[in-house]
């Protein structure tokens, strides 16, 4: 499975539909403090089925919906789409007929999240398993949140072992 693009609409500060192309090799994302860089990583973890609002710097999951800015009212819905190249046909059987997978998570204020794979509604668990089978997912050790290195350094040895458990 190869990740191809991430599309955010109404997710945190990305109110307008925004497309991040995920290309081979090393890509840098730059910009001033507070411009939205960490929000991109959170959108990726979110569409992969992240279920801890706290780990998204949110008090409740509704906090990821664009809450408004100068001259713009808040939204009532947020949606993130992740497009995956499945030409090597390594997806679970149920979704494996397609060369491309589109995973979409949507949240409606007060009504929770829905998930779709290629338009078909699925459970959060199906999305989490899809990514787990591909050695990734919201809690993948390869997704290093801002400050997570400091957390690892300061963690008690008993908490640090989780990094081994995720890998075993």
């Amino acid at each position, binding site marked *: *499975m*190869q*990740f191809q693009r991430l599309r955010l609409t109404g997710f*945190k*500060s*990305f*109110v*307008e539909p*925004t*497309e*991040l192309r*995920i*290309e*081979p*090799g*090393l*890509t*840098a*994302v*730059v*910009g*001033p403090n*507070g*411009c*939205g*860089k*960490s929000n*991109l*990583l959170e959108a*990726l973890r979110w569409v992969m089925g992240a279920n801890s609002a706290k780990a998204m710097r949110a008090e409740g999951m509704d906090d990821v919906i664009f809450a*408004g*800015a*100068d001259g*713009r009212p808040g939204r009532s819905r947020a949606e993130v789409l992740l497009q995956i190249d499945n030409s090597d046909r390594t997806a679970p059987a149920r979704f494996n007929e397609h060369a491309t997978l589109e995973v979409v998570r949507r949240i409606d204020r007060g009504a929770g999240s829905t998930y779709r794979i290629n338009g078909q509604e699925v459970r959060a668990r199906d999305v989490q398993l899809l990514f787990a089978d*591909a*050695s*990734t997912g919201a809690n*993948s*050790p*390869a*997704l*290093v*949140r*801002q400050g997570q*290195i*400091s957390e*690892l*350094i300061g963690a*008690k*040895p*008993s*908490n*640090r*072992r989780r*990094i*081994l*458990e*995720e*890998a*075993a």
Partner: protein
Amino acid sequence: GRERLMAAFDKINASFKTLFQTLFEGGEAELRLVESDDPLEAGLEIFACPPGKRMAVMSLMSGGEQALTATALIFAVFLANPAPICVLDEVDAPLDDANVDRFCKMLHQMRDLTATRFIAITHNPVTMSRMDRLYGVTMAERGVSQLVSVDLKQAEALAAE
């Protein structure tokens, strides 16, 4: 259960030692299971010795040395089971220029060893200059983010806005 964990531990420890020596250009490091003889109960401790210094638990190292050592651990875990995507949010923040350069060299090795696509969120101009491409995030309209593709000169202006 226990066997799988020990197998993972040994594999990760081996990668960790190698990556540490790459990032520090020498020295020694190792992971140890502590606080219990049972691997399922033990905690994970990290011991390291930068070149010319003494082996000590990671909590005695400098801020930058700790960050580089923890980065070696994260990549050792990554190599045990390479993910299709790796995003690093400001992991280079506490590193001096020489260490940022070694960190980037290691990213290049990872890029050549795996099919993984890497995204590095950074404020560091050295890191920016070592990447294959640059995207900029701006808030031309306050509170509203936009994504743009940039070249290096533009990025330095964006990061300093």
